[in-house]
């Protein structure tokens, strides 16, 4: 009898796990950001420090960018204070109409290193100052 009870319990527990898996496996913005930065994640840089700019003022996007790009260290600094040759990451949140990431008069970027995979939510570009 005890074995039947245990088997029935395991069956019900599996059902709970199955339905939970279905709901939890729905992707969220961390996953979309992960897809958008895939090329950048796979690019090896000589320094772990990358300087972050975005059209979004939300600190959440900055934290999430750090989360998806670890072990790279995502720093925030005024553009003028960033040393020459440093890597700059631009993350564009497509839900925000304002696409300006850095004021144009300040920009002095040598070249685009990696263009990230574009998706409906985010666009990420890695540049060198």
């Amino acid at each position, binding site marked *: *009898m*005890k074995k039947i*009870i*245990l088997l029935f*319990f395991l069956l*019900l*527990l599996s059902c*709970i*796990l199955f*339905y*939970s*898996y279905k*709901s*939890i*496996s*729905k*992707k*969220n913005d*961390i*996953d979309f950001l992960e897809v958008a930065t895939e090329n950048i994640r796979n690019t090896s840089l000589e320094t*772990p*420090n990358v300087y972050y700019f975005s059209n979004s003022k939300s600190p959440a996007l900055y*934290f*999430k960018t*750090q*989360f998806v790009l*670890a*072990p*790279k*260290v*995502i*720093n925030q600094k005024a553009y003028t204070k960033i040393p020459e040759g440093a890597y700059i990451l631009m993350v564009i949140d497509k839900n925000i109409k304002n696409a300006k990431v850095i004021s144009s008069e300040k920009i002095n970027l040598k070249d685009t290193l990696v263009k990230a995979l574009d998706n409906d939510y985010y666009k990420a570009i890695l540049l060198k100052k």
Partner: protein
Amino acid sequence: MILLAILFWIVSLYIILDTHKLFKNKLLKWVISICLSASILSFSFSIHLFLGIDFLVYQILITILPSIYCIFQFRNIKIILKREADKKPTLSNWELILILLCFLIFSALFFLKSTRWGSWDAWAIWSLHAKFLVFEDQFINLFTNNISWTHPDYPLMLPSIIASIWKSLNTTSPMVPLFVSYLTTAGLPLLVLGSFLELQLKKIGLICYIIFCLGIFLHFFGSLQYADTLLSLFVLIPFVLINHIDKEKPLLLILIGFFAATSVWIKNEGFLFFIVFSVFFAFSHLKNIKYHVLFLMGALVPLLITLYFKGVYAPINDLVNESSVSTLNKVTEFDRYKTICGYFLVSVVFKNPLVFILLISALILDYKYAFTLVFKVVAVIIVAYFLVYIVTPKDLDWHLKTSIDRLFHHISPLLIYSVFIYFGKKHKIISFKKVT
């Protein structure tokens, strides 16, 4: 491979607990073996990172060690299995159904409240640290104040468990932190039930277990995927083990020392718990040198690893870093005391009504409950938290809002367990006296 290693460790530790006759109850043996295995995995993974050992070599070592032990103990395993099969069951079918039903409700509630990647601190602190630890040549990047918002000084127990599984499975799936969190949260009601069954306090144990399974205090925090529930579990374990010490063979003291010291490796708050617990424990067994030696033996390894981490890798804690002489002036600001008291009151009375009612009832029914080790340790911890809030360099309202509920979550399961066990034991003694 890591999952296989965990399985071997659990079985090996179960055999060790069984052969030393530390507990009779199977459930208690399993829960303690799993917690021990998780701790060993965390410490060994961190040591492999600190020493720069290749991950493949580490995996082979961590798997081979317990598997060799299991092979040598094969005869013993067969004997244990036969003995367990012959044993008269302690639970009736209805009791078993009740236990499993509560566990199912607990699981359903847990997963219903869970979200992908967990709440803010889960991904911004714990899983983020785990992501750094996956990269053995770059994990050191974490320990910089450039990203001080992620608290890089926090200990590595939860991140190292997640990272070791991620790395072994070659993925960074959000399901791993979710299941680690589920097992941690589930460990609390199972540990409590195992402890009561071991002490033959079945009825009161079942009531306590149902409260743990259905009480909102556990699902809510467990499903956030923070390290706070893991700390709750490791704060509870030493007190559970104290109830099962055999005075003739106090080997459990090694485990008590180990688990109490491992709380230091989970969160910085664990330091406070370990110090307070050790002091009270030492004073309650002043004359017994053997007790102190065994306790220290268990505590030594977790303490050394944590101190090494804090000394070599971790940047200075933000509270310490931002403190100055002016911080001490806050001691004289009366308004701060008022604000903190207000938050404490709301947290205890309105957010943890069950714990509040249980504590008040316990003290009314028997004031001697206030002299128990648990009550004394918790009281000192609360006073210490109060003092930290008074001198905090952070904005007081923000600091209280973001941390006070978690601090009470660390001690809530312990307080509930302690009330039930205190009155359960008392009732048993009275019943025993009546019979004799």
